[in-house]
């Protein structure tokens, strides 16, 4: 973590930069976008208060923090995690709303470990090696989860004529 990232402005900049992908990632573990936002806010509030400090690649660290917070939160909420189809976490370009819903539905059908790799690679821009570091898995595992996930998404998107 650079000295700049540890400042208040630096943390706010990280929020601006990675807030979207972190929200999508948080939504992998909870029922709604509102709950996902709560989790992301908790992670950044701890950083702003100086309770914790980022180590290594910021996005990888933030993903781990979101994951841990979400899993802890989920235990305290005592609810089963389910990626809600109703959770509108994607913004669609004009005229592509139906496809966005189909993607959200397809993502909701993926196992959590595949879904998180897709989010981090496609929208987070992390390489498989960086994902492996963030999730404590091997790069090969990350890559194979990704390919399985894309295969399933393709099946979901086929009826729309997107594939």
């Amino acid at each position, binding site marked *: 973590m650079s000295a700049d990232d540890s400042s208040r402005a630096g943390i*706010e900049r990280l929020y601006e930069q990675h807030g*979207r992908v972190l929200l999508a990632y948080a939504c992998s573990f909870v029922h709604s976008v509102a709950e996902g936002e709560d989790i992301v806010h908790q992670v950044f509030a701890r950083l702003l208060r100086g309770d914790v400090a980022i180590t290594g690649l910021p996005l990888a660290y933030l993903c781990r923090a979101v994951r841990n917070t979400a899993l802890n939160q989920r235990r305290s909420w005592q609810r089963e995690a389910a990626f809600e189809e109703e959770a509108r976490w994607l913004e669609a370009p004009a005229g592509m709303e139906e496809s966005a819903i189909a993607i959200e539905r397809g993502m909701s059908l993926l196992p959590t470990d595949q879904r998180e790799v897709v989010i981090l690679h496609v929208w987070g821009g992390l390489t498989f090696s960086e994902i492996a570091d963030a999730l404590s898995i091997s790069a090969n595992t990350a890559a194979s989860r990704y*390919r399985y996930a894309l295969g399933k998404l393709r099946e979901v998107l086929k009826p729309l004529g997107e594939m």
Partner: protein
Amino acid sequence: MDQDEPRIETLLRQFQPRAPRALPLAAADSGHVAGGRDQRRTMRVGGWAGVAAAAAAAMFAANLRFTPMAGLAPETAGGPGLTLNDMRGLVDADPATLDRVLMEASKHVLPDVESPDSVLGRLAQP
């Protein structure tokens, strides 16, 4: 590598995750993070506190209404030896006695409307 993978990736990247709501910086500074869930809980608690305060105010006002007027001691409200609490008890237990006590007490605490010299008596004249 599946030849469809780049197409699927391209399709997915046409969409972007929605942005989260603004970071509650003031809450973070104060050491308390009020996320949407916590904020809703706080609002609910505040709402119930308001209801409790309103109920307490209503009870206080009702109590004032039953408080005897200044200068009228509780002992004298229902005549000698009978307090307001005694009278409340008589409402259910012995209405006839209560009626008799009130009639007796009214001679001392209410204006005499039948006396032609009283203010109310004069006002009542056509």
